């Protein structure tokens, strides 16, 4: 009897671990930033490089910080979703144009539409490192106090907007 039970138990243990493994998404690394202040920066705006923007300028508002680049293929997939979100004007959307050329970036916005209230340039990727960016696109939700409340790695889908972003934004807008 034991002869059959032991392999059965081993099989069940293995099956459980493998099943868990199937559903893991190793590309999604838990961000250490949740509920921490958004790292400071002072970066030139894409459309007006002589002007600078820093997170302090956005205090008191809930904002979306979306890392994008014209060379990034999944950003192209995400773009219509952001355009749609921008139309609802539910939230301020700030773009971080990551390791990109200003010309390419401006062309991209002209042809595909510009969902960003403002985009800033991060040509050498320093701001990206400060935000722990490892896979573009990434999207952060930052609350009125300047704390990062949510991070999404990879393209945001319509479903994500409806199920995660909009409810979270509504909740954060209601906070003092």
């Amino acid at each position: 009897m034991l002869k059959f039970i032991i392999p059965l138990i081993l099989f069940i243990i293995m099956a459980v671990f493998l099943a868990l493994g199937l559903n893991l998404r190793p590309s999604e690394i838990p961000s250490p930033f949740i509920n921490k202040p958004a790292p400071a920066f002072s970066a030139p705006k894409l459309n007006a490089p002589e002007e600078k923007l820093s997170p302090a300028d956005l205090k008191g508002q809930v904002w979306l910080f979306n890392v994008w680049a014209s060379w990034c293929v999944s950003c192209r997939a995400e773009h219509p979703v952001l355009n749609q979100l921008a139309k609802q004007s539910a939230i301020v959307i700030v773009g971080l144009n990551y390791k990109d050329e200003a010309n390419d970036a401006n062309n991209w916005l002209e042809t595909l539409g510009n969902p960003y209230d403002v985009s800033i340039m991060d040509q050498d990727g320093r701001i990206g490192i400060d935000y722990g960016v490892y896979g573009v696109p990434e999207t952060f939700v930052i609350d009125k106090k300047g704390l990062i409340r949510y991070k999404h790695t990879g393209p945001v889908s319509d479903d994500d907007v409806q199920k995660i972003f909009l409810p979270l934004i509504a909740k954060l807008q209601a906070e003092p």
Partner: protein
Amino acid sequence: MKPLLFIFLLMMSGGIYAVDTHQLADPEQQESYETLTKELRCLVCQNQTIADSNAELAADLRQQVYEMLQQGKSREEIVQFMTDRYGDFVLYKPPFKGKTSILWIAPVVFLLMGLITVFFFIRRKKAAANQHSDAGAMEMDIEKQKKIRSLLEKGDPS
């Protein structure tokens, strides 16, 4: 011979094209640079260190490590800088704490489980083998004795 030599050289060349390396003036710092880049994970490729990887992010992180060393930052400070941004996942050697304990304990537990299984398995096999051979020897003896006796009594027919 020539094609063989060519193939051999091709095979060897893999290790030669190193990813760009920064050179620090201080040999001690250079050593820190080399160990640090071998302990930090490239987050894009996930199964390579930033020393091994050609990904752009890995190059940026190498640059970051290089600059921080030049500024006289200690290894701990650099590791802290990286984990603050990327979490423990960036470390190939994760620190021992609640979240990561299973990583550290599991191999030992599995090894022990294996050793215990092997121990019992061998013991059982041995016991079974002993019993079997003893009984076999006895039987053989009885058979043989019978045969010998019968041979002695009747005489060899051959």
